[in-house]
């Protein structure tokens, strides 16, 4: 070890420790002055505030920890919806960007350029304050297909009422596991014998048959509840029954998926373009049909390029969902870092928990991504 290597490290360490020491000393002094003691005990206290939209049962008598869970679940809900739609739109637009049709290619390009050059916050505001405010009042809403009601108070859709829902869920999980095995078997068979198994057909069949069996044999039962208009007061109407998607959720999911889809579209385009022409020609020359070329040669290679940046975009979407605070969608940031913080005044604890939650989420995903990258990387000899 020489001096030149130790000195800079020592200096950096001293600076970092000094900065942290300075901060924590001040924090201690400040908290003493305000009469707060540091600790996470407040999490079990009664929260005494209400949340407008919650996936689990919650009211003011529950604890702050439960409020945290409500926020977390709402964040996850909007992220999952956003990710699903962003993927669908992104893949379609990305493929449209590669089309030989000039009009389609231009339309997709205009969409991408337009939506990704406008700040996401502005888009959320646009949908929430301008576009969705133009919707009709509940009593004037025209039903879509007789059962969907798109109103200014939210989107009312029919809900399923389940008996023995758990058995149904188990059957779906069983179907997914079975598909997994079928795929592994098909791959092995192809490597050994060179014959193909119609995996897609079998998968779809499994996904339909197993849940259907749970209906017939497992005693699962579902009925549909259609929202019905109800008068609250002389001028105020709402819908009762069914499921209500609040306008905050709709505008947030809409803005998130339209914005993120532009980035996913670019990932898809780059991925498909990244597969060299020689690969397709070589595959065609050994007698594969165009479908097989796409399925066995182009897609596996394109996915290798597409998936890592796309996961990054999913992560971005999840983090961007915290913009919900701007339109009062009760996500983690609004419920916990907003309302709960205002009530308890425990800035350090609450902000640190919020940040740690997001940090855990992204580090988990990036560890998974690194593992996945290593797994699919080309094994060079």
């Amino acid at each position, binding site marked *: 070890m020489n001096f030149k290597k130790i000195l*800079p490290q020592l200096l950096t360490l001293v600076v970092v420790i000094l900065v942290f020491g300075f901060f924590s000393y001040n*924090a201690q002094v400040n908290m003493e002055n305000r009469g707060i003691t540091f600790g996470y005990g407040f999490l079990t206290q009664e929260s005494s505030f209400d949340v407008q939209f919650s996936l689990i049962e919650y009211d003011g008598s529950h604890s702050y920890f439960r409020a945290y869970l409500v926020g977390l679940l709402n964040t996850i809900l909007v992220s999952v919806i956003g990710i699903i739609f962003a993927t669908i739109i992104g893949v379609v637009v990305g493929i449209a960007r590669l089309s*030989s049709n000039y009009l389609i290619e231009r339309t997709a390009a205009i969409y991408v350029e337009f939506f990704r*050059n*406008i700040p996401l916050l*502005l888009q959320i505001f646009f949908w929430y304050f301008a576009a969705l405010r133009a919707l009709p009042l509940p009593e004037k809403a025209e039903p879509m297909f007789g059962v969907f009601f798109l109103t200014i108070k939210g989107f009312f859709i029919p809900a399923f009422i389940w008996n023995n829902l758990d058995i149904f869920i188990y059957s779906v999980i069983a179907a997914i596991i079975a598909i997994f095995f079928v795929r592994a078997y098909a791959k092995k068979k192809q490597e050994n014998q060179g014959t193909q198994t119609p995996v897609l057909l079998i998968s779809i069949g499994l996904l339909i048959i197993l849940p259907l069996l749970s209906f017939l044999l497992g005693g699962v039962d579902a009925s549909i509840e259609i929202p019905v208009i109800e008068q609250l007061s002389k001028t105020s109407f709402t819908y009762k029954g069914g499921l209500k998607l609040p306008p905050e959720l709709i505008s947030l999911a809409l803005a998130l998926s339209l914005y993120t889809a532009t980035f996913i579209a670019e990932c898809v385009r780059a991925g498909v373009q990244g597969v060299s022409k020689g690969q397709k020609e070589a595959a065609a020359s050994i007698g594969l049909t165009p479908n097989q070329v796409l399925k066995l040669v182009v897609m596996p290679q394109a996915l290798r390029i597409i998936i890592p940046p796309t996961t990054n975009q999913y992560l971005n979407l999840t983090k961007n969902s915290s913009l919900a*605070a701007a339109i009062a969608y009760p996500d983690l940031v609004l419920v916990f870092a907003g309302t709960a*913080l205002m009530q308890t005044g425990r800035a350090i604890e609450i*902000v640190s928990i919020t940040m740690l939650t997001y*940090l855990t989420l992204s580090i988990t995903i990036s560890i998974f991504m690194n593992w996945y990258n290593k797994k699919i990387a080309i094994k060079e000899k």
Partner: protein
Amino acid sequence: MNKLNFLSPDKNNLYAYLYSGISLFSISILIVFLNSFFSLDLTSFLPGTISYFLPLIIGFIALHLIRIEYSGIKFLDIVNKNINTNNFNALLSLLIIFAVIKSLPPLLSWFIIDANFAGDSKDACSGSGACWAYIKTWFNRFMYGMYPNAEQWRINLSFIALAFLGGVGFFATEKFKKYLTLYYVVVYPVIAFLFIFFFISGGPIFFDFSYGIIAAVISIVIGFFIPSKFKMYYFLIIPITIYILLKYVFFYEELIELGKIQAFEWVETGAWGGLSLTFIVSFFCLIFCFPVGLFLSLGRRSDLPIIKYISIGFIEFWRGVPLITVLFMSSVMFPMFLPEDMFIDKLVRVIIAISLFEAAYVAEVIRGGLQALPRGQYDAAKSLGMGYWKMHIFVILPQALKLVIPGIANTFLALVKDTPLIFVVGLLEIVGMLNLAKTNPEWLGFAMEGYVFASIVFFIICYAMSKYSYNLEQKYKTER
């Protein structure tokens, strides 16, 4: 004359197919056009569904008729190749054409024909279209926020001056070109800060050159006795220490008062706002996040374990949390970490927070460039006897940065698009001002106009930036 087979058009009866195809196509376009612009329904005598799909069917047949390969007519070949390669493409093309024709009249009428341009109150806007009078009335607020009207020339003046100073690089002669980097990285940000502090904020400027000169002289004199091995660390640390000691420990108030210049009325940063605040925040964050990100990326690739792991931890921390929680932290948590009597302006806190946040992203982008360089470049530089800094400044970074221009441009774009988030700490740039104007009781109900206006402004800024970065990329592209 050959037999006409309408199912498979061929080249022999080119003109027969062509004329029938073009006339059918014109008819279908005409039907949609009249329907959408003049609400005339030419096909109302037909049953509803058929009348609805008729233009599509006619257009589809027309495109089928003119799909003749190698016709020898240049225009027809181009059309066929680009929008009419097969039935599916023809259908999609038709749908897009019809959608454009259909959506033009409502858009036109909202934006221009039914819109109100004149007037300065809500009553002027009676039409069904947009109320641009709203934008006109609030334009000053959208640009300058709550900044006093009489003082707005200060913002304009400093922006024009800074744009001019920033454009100096284009006029530099060969002789001065080599100093441009130094100018843009060190001198220009300082000038910009002084301009904004002195003109826009109206704060006093202290010419405490006196301290600086004393510090420089002392450190140079001592510098003669320091072995050259440690000179770099020495010159990094000692002058700054002496300067701080002189200024804060041996505090001479007389010297400060002597060099103080204050010409304008003080305007709180809380009153700043609008598009000018967007520019100020993005400008400073841009300037700060680049060097910080550069050092972080070098730190992450360093051989020194402590520096490496501190850099990794720093980068991953900022990349893992959403910007809004960082801003929350800077507004509610950060004051707890400072001594009671110490106060940092919220604009400064926001700029620091966004800079650190974006620096982590810049660091990852630059790391990509550093990793993409072949090992040979490092080995070659080392074999010439270059040290760590010389190697990076003259060999590695020029190549690596060239590679990552698109990535850095994307990060900067993201930064500009993130600036509206400063509403969290109560600073209202253009989007924040829109939300404020929207709730004004005299101007209720014009949210749409405001958001459309802001979208156009942001689109122009971001699109220009991305095009500029593309040009830059092309300019510095070198064959490897």
